[in-house]
């Protein structure tokens, strides 16, 4: 996703505390780091020197434990929280220096938000809730109800228009929140742990639906979560946050296979690799394989594409009699997965030099 980012933050800081002004000046002038800010100025660092870009149509998951600054970070993107330092750019326009009027317009039309807690107005119907963002934009009633009705249909609540929020389950309430955000047709949706209060089955269902829907509509999303499985299921890329800083940014496979430090390694330790790691990460290159195992002709092996999941490889090997599987890229043989390299992949390692069947 190296295309021009829709929205990005550049070296953004958010520092809270009585002496935050002095701390900000010190960061600006002396370039001190997070540790010094905390030590010298006794400030709380919400976000420390974070640079992130969100590409068109991309879902970027920001993952971290509570207190890691992820909720602060997401609020910098629509300036619910003012950044202490650094730039927030939307299509190259600085969000931090927008007039109040322009900022309201951006929030109303470009950047939608879905919250963790259910923020539906109890005295309004589902339809009126979904239309509320449009009502704020002073769009007339017939039109806004039409748009909101369509958005509700997209999230599967087409039959619930005239119900009240208290008549809905938690999962349905969050769908209404999503419909309200979608109704304004924003380019970017900020999702602040929207599914974390739901039970696991409903959560997974909503995750799948959300991913499908946002890809279908071409929306970009910044998705905050404390759940690694959720981040892996949803995110095109994942940013792991710790103490206000982004520790690692990359694809799910990157983070699981090549954790940058012990913290990330701990995080990914329990994650199942079966649907995450792809064949190309565990295969031996075809040349290496042939030089070490001249007796085996890769062309006779069952073949899978490079992006086949470990799960598929295991199925193939357990069903057939071969202990190796060929990996092809656009029909061309590129490598071989052996039983040994597959097992290493399941443990989350890249294949070692030694090739044995």
């Amino acid at each position, binding site marked *: 996703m190296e295309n021009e980012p829709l929205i990005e933050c550049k070296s953004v800081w958010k520092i809270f505390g009585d002496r935050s002004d002095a701390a900000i000046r010190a960061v600006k002038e002396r370039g001190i780091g997070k540790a010094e800010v905390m030590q010298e100025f006794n400030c709380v660092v919400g976000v420390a020197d974070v640079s992130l870009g969100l590409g068109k149509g991309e879902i970027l998951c920001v993952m971290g434990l509570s207190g890691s600054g992820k909720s602060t970070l997401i609020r910098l993107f629509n300036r*619910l929280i003012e950044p202490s330092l650094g730039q927030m750019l939307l299509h190259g326009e600085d969000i931090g220096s927008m007039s109040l009027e322009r900022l309201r317009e951006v929030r109303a039309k470009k950047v939608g938000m879905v*919250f963790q807690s259910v*923020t539906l107005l109890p*005295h309004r119907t589902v339809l009126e809730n979904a239309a509320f963002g449009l009502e*704020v934009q002073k769009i007339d009633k017939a039109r806004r109800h039409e748009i909101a009705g369509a958005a509700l249909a997209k999230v599967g609540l087409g039959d619930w228009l005239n119900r009240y929020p*208290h008549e809905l389950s938690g999962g349905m309430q969050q769908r209404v929140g999503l419909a309200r955000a979608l109704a*304004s047709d924003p380019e970017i949706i900020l999702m602040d742990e929207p599914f974390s209060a739901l039970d696991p089955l409903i959560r997974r269902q909503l995750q799948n639906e959300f991913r499908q829907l946002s890809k279908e509509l071409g929306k970009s999303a910044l998705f905050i979560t404390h759940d690694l499985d959720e981040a892996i299921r949803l995110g095109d890329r994942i940013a792991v946050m710790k103490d206000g800083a982004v520790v690692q940014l990359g694809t799910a496979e990157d983070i699981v296979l090549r954790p940058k430090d012990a913290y990330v390694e701990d995080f990914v330790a329990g994650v199942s690799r079966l649907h995450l790691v792809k064949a190309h990460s565990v295969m031996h290159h075809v040349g290496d394989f042939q030089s070490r195992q001249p007796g085996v002709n890769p062309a006779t092996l069952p073949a899978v594409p490079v992006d086949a999941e470990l799960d598929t490889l295991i199925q193939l090997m357990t069903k057939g009699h071969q202990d190796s599987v060929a990996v092809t890229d656009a029909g061309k043989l590129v490598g071989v997965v052996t039983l040994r390299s597959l097992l290493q992949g399941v443990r989350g390692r890249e294949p070692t030099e030694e090739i044995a069947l």
Partner: protein
Amino acid sequence: MNMSFSYSPGDVIAPAIDWLNTNFHPLFAAISLIVETILDVLLSVLSVLPAWALIAVIALLGWKLATWRIALLVVGTLGFCWLMGLWEATLQTIALVLLAVFLSITIAFPLGIWAARNKRAEAALRPVLDIMQTVPPWVYLVPAVIIFSLGRTPALIATVVYGTPPMLRLTTLALNQVPKSFLELGEALGAPRLTTLFKIELPIAKPTLLVGLNQCILLSLAMVVLAGLVGAGGLGAEVTRGLTRMELGVGLRAGLSIVAVALLFDRLSQAALNRPIGKR
């Protein structure tokens, strides 16, 4: 050594009141005139229909807007006042309470919102409210009577002073109870602050606001009765008459009528509070 030390704030306040009275008399006279006129208009509107017709109209409204129980209650309570031969006094009391409650809300509502927004304003208002609620009402009836002379105006002022604090406190409480995430929602949708206030905060705060209204109405009613002492007329005057002449019958009839009116007002505002969501 026998030293007695005493200080009477009256030494300062009394001359101040006198000074106000001599220098601002036309202003006070004008206020009095306005209050009297509004009350007269209210009263004449209430008296357009004969008693039975007005009761029927209110009962019908109660039935339409709430439940048939409310309609029954209207007939029972107002009918009682009518049968007691106190219809006119009842209307006078109701008019005074309505105007007092209206003024209390007009004062309390914006101040309450301000206090909810601004911690310092809240801190500054709190002792004032404490004083308003704890000083015995007779005490500020005195200067009010000195300035406005006997009648309905000092009674109204005393009532507003008494009815404003609960409404104000509960307005502040109601707004402070609105979860922060709803305020964020307003901001994130790009809503101007007034839109957030009227479309998000106030509807969510409504139940607590209605409790404030209920308290305001009941305290105002209690005060209006007390204000019978200063010539405000109405049911309070009947009670005072019963007391000064030692006529139990008069006092009891007026007293029970007051209970009836209080019951009606309380249940009406409760009914507004308990309206189920989705009923329009």
